């Protein structure tokens, strides 16, 4: 909410500044035109005064100012009675607007481009001398008057540059704040994991050892029961202790910070090993396992941990297909990485659960620990890889693992 407020405020201030710059620029052009018009009127008055005093117009040749590009007086027949270029005096003009000035008795002013390429300001007006009316054509240089426009252009450029620089800085600051927030969350997560690690170690000591004793006694009771009914109870105790042992092992694995040595592993062997563990359970549930892996592709990592990831994913897949289905494994080299996909045709994951599936202890199964996928994610990230899940409820789930490949290895060709 606060971010949106600041963003909107920034945009509002930016828009005001843009409006100010544009309006300032537009006003400057009007000011320049006014300046030029005022100057033209003043000069026209002076020229008229000289022309009235000296009807021969020769005195006009002495009249010079730095603002005048040239000026001329034209009579009703269209001949130049005076021109700052003396060579043109007496010649005719074919410019209609000069004649029109005499006909309409009105002054005109406009920007023109001279033959030299210079942008100039042309002012034409009737000029009354004793006995006749002439057309005055006065062309002025614009550089001095346009100083205000140039200044406005510079200011506009500075405002735009500052605005852009401001927004870029803001974007950088926002980026840094996001990174800081991310780091903070990562630190909190690590802290939680550390606490979990301590708890796991305590569980290992306080639960695992008694659990081993309970399991051992239950196994003894199961072998020589005093009452035949106790054999079944003893088996149930052993089964539950095994499940609890598995839970404690998962918890220790999740909380632990094992930086084991990364070695090149044949992708084909890794997948085959994981499939052999699950094949029996899959066949029991009428699940067909299909495996397509490129030969000769190697992945860098810890064999046991990556095998555990694949096994967890395949177990989830098989459990999502209680009425049978197809489990596909596909592995190939893609660039410097190795991509492994595990797809099933099971019931899929509900959209509302997708955001939480990697959270520890989140489970949708009645007897699940909620550590399977969390552990997978942790192991994959420890391998500097990525895990991504896509699921369509009722149609199935695809888990994609991207793991670092082995350097200097060509693209795998054959498949099995």
């Amino acid at each position, binding site marked *: 909410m606060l971010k949106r407020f600041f963003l909107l405020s920034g945009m509002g201030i930016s828009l005001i500044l843009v409006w100010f710059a544009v309006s300032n620029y537009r006003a400057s052009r009007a000011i320049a035109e006014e300046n030029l018009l005022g100057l033209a009127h003043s000069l026209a008055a002076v020229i008229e005064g000289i022309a009235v005093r000296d009807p021969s117009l020769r005195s006009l040749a002495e009249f010079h100012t*730095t603002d005048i*590009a*040239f000026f*001329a007086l034209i009579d009703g027949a269209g001949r130049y009675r005076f*021109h*700052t*270029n003396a*060579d*043109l005096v007496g*010649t*005719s*003009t*074919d*410019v209609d607007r*000069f004649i029109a000035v005499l006909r309409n008795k009105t002054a005109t002013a*406009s*920007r*023109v*481009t*001279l*033959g*030299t*390429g*210079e*942008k*100039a300001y*042309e002012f034409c007006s009737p000029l009354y001398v004793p006995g006749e009316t002439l057309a005055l*054509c006065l*062309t002025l*240089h614009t*550089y001095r008057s*346009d100083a205000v*426009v*140039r200044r406005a*252009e*510079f200011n*506009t*450029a500075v405002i*735009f*540059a500052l605005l*852009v*620089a401001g*927004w*870029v800085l803001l*974007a950088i600051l926002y*980026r840094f704040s996001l990174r800081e927030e991310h780091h903070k969350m990562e630190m909190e997560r690590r802290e939680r994991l550390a606490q979990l690690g301590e708890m796991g170690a305590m569980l290992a000591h306080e639960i695992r050892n008694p659990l081993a004793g309970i399991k051992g006694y239950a196994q003894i009771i199961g072998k020589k029961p005093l009452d035949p009914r106790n054999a079944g109870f003893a088996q149930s105790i052993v089964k539950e202790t095994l499940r609890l042992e598995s839970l404690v092992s998962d918890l220790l694995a999740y909380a632990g910070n094992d930086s084991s040595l990364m070695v090149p592993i044949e992708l084909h062997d890794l997948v085959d090993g994981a499939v052999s563990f699950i094949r029996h359970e899959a066949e029991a549930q009428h699940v067909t396992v299909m495996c397509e892996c490129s030969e000769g592709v190697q992945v860098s990592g810890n064999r046991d941990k990556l095998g555990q990831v694949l096994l967890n994913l395949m177990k989830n897949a098989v459990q999502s297909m209680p009425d049978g289905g197809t489990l596909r494994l596909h592995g190939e080299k893609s660039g410097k990485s190795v991509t492994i996909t595990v797809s099933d045709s099971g019931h899929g994951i509900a959209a509302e659960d997708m955001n939480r599936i990697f959270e520890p202890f989140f489970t949708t199964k009645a007897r699940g620990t909620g550590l399977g996928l969390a552990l997978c994610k942790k192991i994959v990230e420890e391998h500097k890889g990525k895990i991504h899940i896509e699921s369509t409820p009722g149609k199935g789930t695809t888990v994609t693992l991207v793991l670092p490949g082995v350097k200097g290895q060509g693209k795998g060709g054959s498949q099995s």
Partner: protein
Amino acid sequence: MRKERFSLVITLAVVLNCLFIGTSFAGFGFGGDDLGKSGLDFNKGYDVNTVTTVSGRVASSPRTGENGHVFVDVRTAGETISLNLGPKRFWEKQEIPLRPNDVIAAKGSKAQGQDGKTYLLVQKLANRTTGANAVVRNERGGAGWSGGNMGGMMSNGPGGGMMRGGGGGMMRR
């Protein structure tokens, strides 16, 4: 993904910045046309209305400037004017030395550039110190280096009615 997006935003911002600055500066001397900093057309430009004669001392040796043209600064009574003497190859063929403090007289079309300087697109020039003369353009401004202009255009005499589009000017060339 986020890193790529950030780079994209930064690139976009820099490009927009350059565009804005380019647009804002375009009006005063750094425009996108090929007329150069002065905004004057030294190759074909000339306006008979602004023809005048100036005389003064050479302020500095001739130098090559905009569009490969040769310019020499001349101090007159009231101001310093940059005389445009045509393209370098053309001027070198004229073999007229101009040295600082030479007294010269030049006739040509006067113009003020967008850089605020005053230029004279020289038609003819006389070095009064050495007595050398040069014709750079014909009476109507036809450039001596563009072949055929010298004779052909001069025969029309001054004051011909060539107009430039967009409401520009009076009589040209």
